[in-house]
């Protein structure tokens, strides 16, 4: 508690500190709200500048951008079907239909409140548990366990987003195949690169997401516009009532728990949190058929979970130097720019730095509640910008976002080709989320599979003799069997 107060004091007693805190908060929200750009773009372009501000403020800035960005990404997901980042993808499933129904403000209201609740609870847990949990995580999760966990994640993802089991798995397979492009994780042997060096680094998932969601949406609405069948979404500024919130209490609790535990896992963190939480919301719901048509719980679940994952993601990051995603990876860069290595030492070496980060994430989560409520009333007016001008704007911002991360022109091509693919895929029963998750989990999964197999002397049974991995493999297999059994029951059962 004392540490937390010290951190808070450091944060708010200096005008520069307050300025950077507010700047990060507003920056994350604004970049999150510009279709095509996201907090990641902001974080990437700001990175070189952090070398010139004191270390504690630089780290704090990234903590605040992280928190506000994860929420900010929900705004465009809801308003334009353009998730700011992968972890906001499930938010679009129900958030965008809510906008089409004329309830954008309500959806944003749910998103902002639940992001704030998830983020605040997560920040509290993070302050209590970072040290003990980090030690447990590093000694429990090696390549074998991470491989098993990703296998479990894949079995879940295959069931998301398609009515047909076969099509779900084919979508996932397509994603995994896209993830294979580039050098293999062991020998860097070029695979499916067709002789160009641009492809040796693989296909980035940020351009892919921008293409499948943002660009394809522009293409679809653009086509409607040129054919005269475009309908601008209706505007309303109604906010969810307290009764409506109270009805969500279990969804919020469940999603916070899921989000927090997923967040601890390096590499899959917030994304897995959002997808798992959405899936669980569907599974526990009395009306699963309403999901995808603008069900509020479909916004509540992923938004609570992905913000709950932000605090948890700090645990492996700070204690082990293991980032959960692109933004947390950049935070390692911020530490490095100030000649500090994240890792077991950081809690001893720079406690004030860690606590200012913790305090800033806590206060940023609370501030989102206030700022977000105000913003949700105003931000929907973005929908008033004529689509004729919004469309080229989205494309230009998306292009800058896709290119700026790696400086690779193929990322721009990938984005536009994914946009065309998304245009056609969205009219089919194939699952866009499964493709995206296939790319992300496949890239991490193949890496840890090769490490695990080397350790296990290429014996697959080894995955079942290690207790933690056996549990994940077992649950994964059950998930597959359950999916098949359910389909079988539909055909042959009652």
């Amino acid at each position, binding site marked *: 508690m004392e540490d937390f107060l010290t951190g808070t004091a450091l944060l708010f007693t200096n005008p520069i500190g307050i300025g950077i805190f507010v700047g990060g908060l507003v920056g994350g929200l604004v970049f999150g709200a510009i279709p095509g750009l996201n907090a990641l773009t902001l974080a990437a372009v700001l990175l070189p500048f952090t070398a010139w501000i004191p270390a504690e403020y630089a780290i704090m800035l990234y903590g605040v951008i992280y928190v506000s960005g994860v929420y900010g990404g929900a705004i465009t997901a809801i308003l334009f079907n353009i998730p700011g980042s992968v972890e906001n993808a499930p938010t679009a499933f129900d958030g965008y239909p809510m906008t089409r129904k004329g309830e954008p403000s309500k959806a944003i209201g749910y998103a902002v409140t639940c992001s704030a609740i998830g983020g605040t609870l997560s920040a509290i847990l993070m302050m209590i548990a970072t040290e003990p949990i980090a030690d447990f995580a590093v000694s429990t999760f090696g390549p074998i366990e991470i491989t098993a966990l990703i296998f479990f994640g894949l079995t879940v993802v295959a069931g998301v987003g398609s009515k047909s089991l076969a099509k779900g798995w084919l979508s996932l397979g397509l994603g995994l*195949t896209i993830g294979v492009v580039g050098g*293999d994780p062991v020998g860097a042997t070029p695979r499916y690169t067709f002789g160009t060096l641009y492809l040796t680094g693989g296909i980035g998932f940020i351009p892919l997401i921008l293409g499948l969601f943002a660009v394809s949406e522009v293409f679809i609405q653009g086509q409607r516009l040129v054919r005269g069948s475009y309908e601008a979404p209706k505007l309303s500024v109604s906010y969810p009532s307290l009764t409506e919130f109270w009805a969500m209490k279990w969804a919020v609790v469940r999603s916070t728990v899921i989000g927090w535990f997923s967040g601890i896992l390096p590499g899959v963190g917030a994304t897995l949190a959002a997808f798992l939480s959405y899936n669980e919301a569907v599974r526990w719901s009395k009306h699963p058929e309403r999901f995808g048509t603008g069900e509020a719980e479909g916004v509540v679940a992923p938004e609570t979970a992905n913000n709950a994952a932000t605090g948890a993601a700090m645990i492996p990051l700070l204690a082990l130097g293991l980032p959960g995603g692109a933004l947390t990876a950049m935070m390692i860069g911020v530490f490095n720019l100030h000649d500090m290595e994240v890792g077991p030492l950081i809690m001893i070496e720079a406690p004030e730095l860690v606590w200012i980060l913790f305090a800033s994430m806590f206060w940023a989560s609370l501030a989102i509640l206030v700022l977000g409520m105000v913003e949700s009333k105003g931000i929907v007016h973005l929908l008033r910008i004529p689509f004729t001008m919004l469309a080229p704007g989205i494309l230009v911002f998306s292009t*800058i976002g896709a290119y700026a991360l790696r400086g690779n022109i193929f990322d721009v091509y990938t984005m*536009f080709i994914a*946009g065309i693919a998304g245009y056609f895929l969205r009219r089919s029963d194939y699952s866009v989320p499964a493709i995206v998750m296939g790319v992300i989990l496949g890239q991490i999964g193949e890496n840890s599979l090769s490490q695990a197999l080397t350790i296990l002397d290429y014996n697959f049974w080894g995955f079942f003799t290690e207790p933690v991995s056996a549990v994940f493999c077992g649950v994964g297999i059950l998930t597959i069997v359950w999916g098949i059994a359910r389909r079988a029951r539909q055909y042959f059962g009652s």
Partner: protein
Amino acid sequence: MKDRVTWEALAWCVLILGAYALSLDFDKPLPHYPPGAAFWPHIVQFGMAIAAIVLLVSRFLPQTAGDEAAETPEYIEEAPEDLAGITWRTIAVFLIPLIWAYAMHQMGFLLVTPFFLIGFTWLMGVTRWRTLLAFGFGFYLLLLVVFYKLIFTPLPMGAGFFHTINAEILAVLQ
């Protein structure tokens, strides 16, 4: 509908076979990893092949009520029927961004972006020249200020001669 499923399943088979054939190029054991670079792709292709066969077989199964009210939620948007068929405008909407991306790579972001902005806005149905120019250059100016002046974001510089022109403009902006 059923024919469509057959065609889709066959398309998947072609894709899987193609990926398998291309994987033979790198299907060799690695010094520190005997399964080799093609091991994982082959697992994926095997799984996809099973799924494609299931999809093909499902075409011959009777449709059941379960298909309509499947427990799995429906996340996807209703098929936009109004977008059936492909016109020259559809193709233009797809092609113009790709041409812009290629031109940006060859001639630099700074030189080609105003043309893209004006061209795409025109395609979206704005035909008044004054609006087009005002929006195109206004937005371009905003980009210059934000991404070159406020926060330096490295964007494509083009090749050879165009690289030099872009660099000279950049020097002025910076």
